[in-house]
Protein backbone atom coordinates (compact mmCIF):
# COMPACT_ATOMS: atom_id res chain seq x y z
CA UNK A 1 0.00 0.00 0.00
CA UNK A 2 3.02 2.26 -0.04
CA UNK A 3 2.57 5.10 -2.44
CA UNK A 4 6.12 5.71 -3.55
CA UNK A 5 8.05 8.88 -2.83
CA UNK A 6 7.06 11.70 -5.14
CA UNK A 7 4.06 9.92 -6.64
CA UNK A 8 1.48 12.28 -5.21
CA UNK A 9 1.61 15.72 -6.82
CA UNK A 10 0.48 18.99 -5.29
CA UNK A 11 -2.14 19.47 -3.83
CA UNK A 12 -2.82 15.84 -2.98
CA UNK A 13 0.10 15.14 -0.71
CA UNK A 14 -0.68 18.23 1.36
CA UNK A 15 -4.36 17.27 1.61
CA UNK A 16 -3.56 13.81 2.98
CA UNK A 17 -0.98 15.27 5.32
CA UNK A 18 -3.47 17.71 6.83
CA UNK A 19 -6.12 15.02 7.36
CA UNK A 20 -3.70 12.45 8.73
CA UNK A 21 -1.75 14.73 11.01
CA UNK A 22 -4.96 15.96 12.62
CA UNK A 23 -5.92 12.41 13.50
CA UNK A 24 -2.39 11.43 14.53
CA UNK A 25 -2.33 14.46 16.84
CA UNK A 26 -5.57 13.26 18.41
CA UNK A 27 -3.98 9.81 18.67
CA UNK A 28 -1.00 11.26 20.53
CA UNK A 29 -3.43 12.90 22.95
CA UNK A 30 -5.26 9.59 23.46
CA UNK A 31 -1.91 7.86 23.89
CA UNK A 32 -0.78 10.22 26.65
CA UNK A 33 -4.14 9.85 28.39
CA UNK A 34 -4.00 6.05 28.33
CA UNK A 35 -0.40 5.90 29.56
CA UNK A 36 -1.11 8.40 32.34
CA UNK A 37 -4.18 6.55 33.53
CA UNK A 38 -2.76 3.07 33.02
CA UNK A 39 1.06 3.04 33.07
CA UNK A 40 0.87 -0.76 32.96
CA UNK A 41 -0.55 -0.47 29.44
CA UNK A 42 2.83 0.74 28.10
CA UNK A 43 4.23 -2.73 27.36
CA UNK A 44 0.97 -3.56 25.58
CA UNK A 45 1.39 -0.44 23.44
CA UNK A 46 4.90 -1.54 22.56
CA UNK A 47 3.51 -4.96 21.71
CA UNK A 48 0.94 -3.50 19.32
CA UNK A 49 3.63 -1.36 17.70
CA UNK A 50 5.84 -4.42 17.42
CA UNK A 51 3.05 -6.40 15.74
CA UNK A 52 2.75 -3.65 13.11
CA UNK A 53 6.55 -3.59 12.69
CA UNK A 54 6.77 -7.33 12.07
CA UNK A 55 3.77 -7.62 9.77
CA UNK A 56 4.61 -4.60 7.65
CA UNK A 57 8.14 -5.94 7.14
CA UNK A 58 6.92 -9.29 5.80
CA UNK A 59 6.58 -9.31 2.06
CA UNK A 60 4.48 -12.34 1.31
CA UNK A 61 3.70 -14.13 -1.93
CA UNK A 62 0.15 -14.06 -3.21
CA UNK A 63 -1.89 -16.07 -5.69
CA UNK A 64 -1.59 -13.24 -8.21
CA UNK A 65 2.11 -14.00 -8.59
CA UNK A 66 3.23 -10.84 -6.86
CA UNK A 67 4.19 -9.91 -3.33
CA UNK A 68 2.81 -7.50 -0.83
CA UNK A 69 2.76 -7.09 2.92
CA UNK A 70 0.11 -7.05 5.64
CA UNK A 71 -0.31 -4.03 7.92
CA UNK A 72 -0.97 -5.21 11.48
CA UNK A 73 -2.82 -2.05 12.42
CA UNK A 74 -6.26 -3.65 12.86
CA UNK A 75 -5.45 -5.41 16.14
CA UNK A 76 -4.06 -2.21 17.66
CA UNK A 77 -7.29 -0.46 16.68
CA UNK A 78 -9.46 -3.06 18.39
CA UNK A 79 -7.43 -2.88 21.61
CA UNK A 80 -6.50 0.82 21.84
CA UNK A 81 -8.90 2.48 19.40
CA UNK A 82 -8.20 3.66 15.84
CA UNK A 83 -6.49 6.95 16.74
CA UNK A 84 -3.70 5.25 18.69
CA UNK A 85 -3.31 2.74 15.85
CA UNK A 86 -2.73 5.75 13.58
CA UNK A 87 0.24 6.89 15.66
CA UNK A 88 1.77 3.41 15.73
CA UNK A 89 1.28 2.97 11.97
CA UNK A 90 2.93 6.27 11.22
CA UNK A 91 6.01 5.25 13.20
CA UNK A 92 6.37 2.08 11.10
CA UNK A 93 5.77 4.02 7.89
CA UNK A 94 8.36 6.61 8.87
CA UNK A 95 10.92 3.87 9.52
CA UNK A 96 10.26 2.43 6.06
CA UNK A 97 10.29 5.82 4.34
CA UNK A 98 13.61 6.84 5.88
CA UNK A 99 15.55 3.57 5.92
CA UNK A 100 14.02 1.44 3.18
CA UNK A 101 12.99 3.99 0.54
CA UNK A 102 9.61 2.32 0.86
CA UNK A 103 6.80 4.81 0.70
CA UNK A 104 8.15 8.27 1.25
CA UNK A 105 8.14 11.49 3.20
CA UNK A 106 5.92 13.31 0.72
CA UNK A 107 3.47 10.39 0.66
CA UNK A 108 3.62 9.73 4.43
CA UNK A 109 0.34 11.57 4.93
CA UNK A 110 -1.48 9.50 2.32
CA UNK A 111 0.05 6.22 3.50
CA UNK A 112 -0.79 7.03 7.12
CA UNK A 113 -4.34 7.72 5.99
CA UNK A 114 -4.78 4.29 4.37
CA UNK A 115 -2.84 2.09 6.81
CA UNK A 116 -3.23 4.11 9.98
CA UNK A 117 -6.71 5.58 9.68
CA UNK A 118 -9.04 3.81 7.25
CA UNK A 119 -7.71 0.33 8.05
CA UNK A 120 -7.99 0.79 11.84
CA UNK A 121 -11.39 2.50 11.64
CA UNK A 122 -12.76 -0.33 9.49
CA UNK A 123 -11.24 -2.92 11.84
CA UNK A 124 -12.70 -1.19 14.89
CA UNK A 125 -16.19 -0.89 13.38
CA UNK A 126 -16.20 -4.52 12.23
CA UNK A 127 -15.17 -5.58 15.72
CA UNK A 128 -18.01 -3.56 17.28
CA UNK A 129 -20.54 -5.02 14.84
CA UNK A 130 -19.29 -8.57 15.52
CA UNK A 131 -19.61 -8.03 19.27
CA UNK A 132 -23.15 -6.71 18.84
CA UNK A 133 -23.99 -9.73 16.69
CA UNK A 134 -22.55 -11.93 19.46
CA UNK A 135 -20.14 -13.66 17.13
CA UNK A 136 -17.32 -15.62 18.79
CA UNK A 137 -14.36 -13.44 19.81
CA UNK A 138 -11.99 -15.14 17.37
CA UNK A 139 -14.37 -14.54 14.49
CA UNK A 140 -14.59 -10.86 15.42
CA UNK A 141 -10.83 -10.43 15.68
CA UNK A 142 -10.28 -12.32 12.44
CA UNK A 143 -12.80 -10.27 10.47
CA UNK A 144 -11.60 -7.00 11.99
CA UNK A 145 -7.91 -7.62 11.20
CA UNK A 146 -8.58 -9.11 7.76
CA UNK A 147 -10.96 -6.42 6.54
CA UNK A 148 -8.88 -3.63 8.08
CA UNK A 149 -5.91 -4.91 6.10
CA UNK A 150 -7.92 -5.25 2.89
CA UNK A 151 -9.50 -1.82 3.15
CA UNK A 152 -6.09 -0.25 3.60
CA UNK A 153 -5.28 -1.41 0.08
CA UNK A 154 -8.69 -0.43 -1.28
CA UNK A 155 -8.00 3.04 0.10
CA UNK A 156 -4.59 3.23 -1.56
CA UNK A 157 -6.22 2.24 -4.86
CA UNK A 158 -8.78 5.03 -4.47
CA UNK A 159 -6.10 7.57 -3.49
CA UNK A 160 -4.12 6.77 -6.63
CA UNK A 161 -7.21 6.70 -8.86
CA UNK A 162 -8.10 10.22 -7.68
CA UNK A 163 -4.73 11.50 -8.89
CA UNK A 164 -4.30 9.26 -11.93
CA UNK A 165 -7.74 8.64 -13.45
CA UNK A 166 -7.69 6.85 -16.81
CA UNK A 167 -9.44 8.20 -19.90
CA UNK A 168 -12.51 6.34 -18.69
CA UNK A 169 -12.43 8.17 -15.39
CA UNK A 170 -11.88 7.61 -11.68
CA UNK A 171 -13.73 4.36 -11.37
CA UNK A 172 -11.89 2.66 -14.19
CA UNK A 173 -8.56 3.63 -12.65
CA UNK A 174 -9.77 2.53 -9.22
CA UNK A 175 -10.52 -0.94 -10.60
CA UNK A 176 -7.15 -1.09 -12.30
CA UNK A 177 -5.19 -0.22 -9.16
CA UNK A 178 -7.55 -2.32 -7.08
CA UNK A 179 -6.88 -5.33 -9.30
CA UNK A 180 -3.18 -5.09 -8.47
CA UNK A 181 -3.44 -4.13 -4.82
CA UNK A 182 -6.64 -5.54 -3.39
CA UNK A 183 -6.68 -8.93 -5.14
CA UNK A 184 -3.06 -9.58 -4.20
CA UNK A 185 -3.94 -8.62 -0.66
CA UNK A 186 -6.79 -11.08 -0.05
CA UNK A 187 -4.71 -14.10 1.07
CA UNK A 188 -2.33 -11.83 2.98
CA UNK A 189 -5.22 -10.23 4.81
CA UNK A 190 -6.49 -13.67 5.78
CA UNK A 191 -3.01 -14.48 7.10
CA UNK A 192 -3.02 -11.29 9.15
CA UNK A 193 -6.42 -12.23 10.55
CA UNK A 194 -5.04 -15.57 11.70
CA UNK A 195 -1.96 -14.03 13.33
CA UNK A 196 -4.18 -11.50 15.09
CA UNK A 197 -6.23 -14.35 16.57
CA UNK A 198 -3.06 -15.89 18.01
CA UNK A 199 -1.86 -12.70 19.68
CA UNK A 200 -5.33 -11.79 20.87
CA UNK A 201 -5.96 -15.21 22.42
CA UNK A 202 -2.73 -14.81 24.34
CA UNK A 203 -3.68 -11.33 25.53
CA UNK A 204 -7.19 -12.36 26.51
CA UNK A 205 -5.74 -15.17 28.59
CA UNK A 206 -2.90 -13.26 30.25
CA UNK A 207 -3.96 -9.64 30.13
CA UNK A 208 -7.76 -9.81 30.25
CA UNK A 209 -8.07 -7.30 33.07
CA UNK A 210 -5.78 -4.78 31.42
CA UNK A 211 -7.71 -5.07 28.13
CA UNK A 212 -10.92 -4.37 29.99
CA UNK A 213 -9.34 -1.44 31.89
CA UNK A 214 -8.36 0.32 28.66
CA UNK A 215 -12.10 0.51 28.05
CA UNK A 216 -11.91 0.46 24.28
CA UNK A 217 -12.71 -3.16 23.98
CA UNK A 218 -15.69 -4.81 25.59
CA UNK A 219 -14.90 -8.45 25.89
CA UNK A 220 -17.20 -11.28 26.68
CA UNK A 221 -14.68 -11.54 29.45
CA UNK A 222 -16.30 -14.04 31.78
CA UNK A 223 -14.38 -17.20 30.90
CA UNK A 224 -11.24 -15.42 29.78
CA UNK A 225 -10.89 -13.08 32.69
CA UNK A 226 -11.36 -15.71 35.31
CA UNK A 227 -8.54 -17.52 33.66
CA UNK A 228 -6.58 -14.29 33.49
CA UNK A 229 -6.94 -13.22 37.14
CA UNK A 230 -3.61 -12.52 38.64
Amino acid sequence: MHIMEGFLPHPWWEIWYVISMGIVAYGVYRLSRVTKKLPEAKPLLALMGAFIFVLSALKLPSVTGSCSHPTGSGLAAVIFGPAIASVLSMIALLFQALLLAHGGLTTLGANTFSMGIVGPVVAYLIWVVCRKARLPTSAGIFLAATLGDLFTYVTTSAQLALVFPTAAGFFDAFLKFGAIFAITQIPLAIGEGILAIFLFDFLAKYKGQLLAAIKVISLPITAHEQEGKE
Partner: protein
Amino acid sequence: MKTKHIILIVVMVALFIVPFIISPSAEYGGADSAVEELISNQGYEPWFSPIWEPPSSEIESLLFALQASIGAIIIGYFVGFEKGKRAKK
Protein backbone atom coordinates in the same frame (compact mmCIF):
# COMPACT_ATOMS: atom_id res chain seq x y z
CA MET B 1 -2.13 -25.05 22.06
CA LYS B 2 -5.69 -25.79 21.10
CA THR B 3 -6.88 -27.66 18.03
CA LYS B 4 -8.14 -24.31 16.72
CA HIS B 5 -4.61 -22.95 16.74
CA ILE B 6 -3.16 -25.97 14.99
CA ILE B 7 -5.76 -25.76 12.21
CA LEU B 8 -5.05 -22.04 11.85
CA ILE B 9 -1.32 -22.59 11.51
CA VAL B 10 -1.89 -25.19 8.79
CA VAL B 11 -4.25 -22.84 6.93
CA MET B 12 -1.77 -20.00 7.14
CA VAL B 13 1.18 -22.02 5.90
CA ALA B 14 -0.99 -23.33 3.05
CA LEU B 15 -2.00 -19.78 2.12
CA PHE B 16 1.59 -18.86 1.39
CA ILE B 17 2.57 -22.10 -0.33
CA VAL B 18 -0.41 -22.28 -2.67
CA PRO B 19 0.77 -19.31 -4.79
CA PHE B 20 3.89 -21.24 -5.82
CA ILE B 21 1.79 -24.23 -6.83
CA ILE B 22 -0.70 -22.16 -8.84
CA SER B 23 1.83 -19.96 -10.60
CA PRO B 24 5.33 -21.39 -10.24
CA SER B 25 6.82 -19.23 -12.97
CA ALA B 26 5.45 -15.87 -11.85
CA GLU B 27 7.90 -13.11 -10.96
CA TYR B 28 6.66 -12.37 -7.44
CA GLY B 29 7.61 -8.73 -7.72
CA GLY B 30 6.13 -6.20 -5.33
CA ALA B 31 2.58 -4.97 -5.87
CA ASP B 32 3.87 -1.53 -4.88
CA SER B 33 6.31 -1.46 -7.77
CA ALA B 34 3.73 -2.91 -10.20
CA VAL B 35 1.54 0.11 -9.48
CA GLU B 36 4.54 2.43 -9.66
CA GLU B 37 5.23 1.08 -13.14
CA LEU B 38 1.62 1.49 -14.22
CA ILE B 39 1.73 5.16 -13.25
CA SER B 40 5.15 5.77 -14.80
CA ASN B 41 3.86 4.28 -18.05
CA GLN B 42 1.26 7.03 -18.13
CA GLY B 43 4.17 9.42 -18.41
CA TYR B 44 4.19 10.62 -14.80
CA GLU B 45 7.51 11.76 -13.39
CA PRO B 46 7.79 11.64 -9.60
CA TRP B 47 8.60 15.11 -8.34
CA PHE B 48 10.57 13.99 -5.31
CA SER B 49 12.91 11.09 -4.75
CA PRO B 50 13.82 9.31 -1.52
CA ILE B 51 16.40 11.24 0.48
CA TRP B 52 18.28 7.99 1.09
CA GLU B 53 18.02 4.62 -0.60
CA PRO B 54 19.57 1.35 0.51
CA PRO B 55 22.62 1.03 -1.75
CA SER B 56 21.85 -2.57 -2.71
CA SER B 57 19.13 -5.18 -2.36
CA GLU B 58 21.32 -6.89 0.24
CA ILE B 59 21.29 -3.80 2.42
CA GLU B 60 17.58 -3.44 1.80
CA SER B 61 16.87 -6.98 2.98
CA LEU B 62 19.14 -6.33 5.97
CA LEU B 63 16.99 -3.38 6.97
CA PHE B 64 13.76 -5.29 6.40
CA ALA B 65 15.09 -8.08 8.59
CA LEU B 66 16.05 -5.48 11.17
CA GLN B 67 12.53 -4.07 11.17
CA ALA B 68 10.98 -7.52 11.59
CA SER B 69 13.43 -8.56 14.29
CA ILE B 70 12.89 -5.41 16.35
CA GLY B 71 9.19 -6.26 16.35
CA ALA B 72 9.75 -9.95 16.99
CA ILE B 73 12.07 -9.31 19.95
CA ILE B 74 9.45 -7.13 21.63
CA ILE B 75 6.67 -9.68 21.02
CA GLY B 76 8.84 -12.54 22.29
CA TYR B 77 9.91 -10.58 25.37
CA PHE B 78 6.31 -9.65 26.22
CA VAL B 79 4.97 -13.18 25.78
CA GLY B 80 7.83 -14.77 27.70
CA PHE B 81 7.59 -12.23 30.51
CA GLU B 82 3.86 -12.76 31.00
CA LYS B 83 4.12 -16.54 30.83
CA GLY B 84 7.00 -16.53 33.30
CA LYS B 85 5.10 -14.29 35.69
CA ARG B 86 2.12 -16.63 35.57
CA ALA B 87 4.26 -19.75 36.00
CA LYS B 88 5.90 -18.34 39.15
CA LYS B 89 2.54 -18.18 40.92
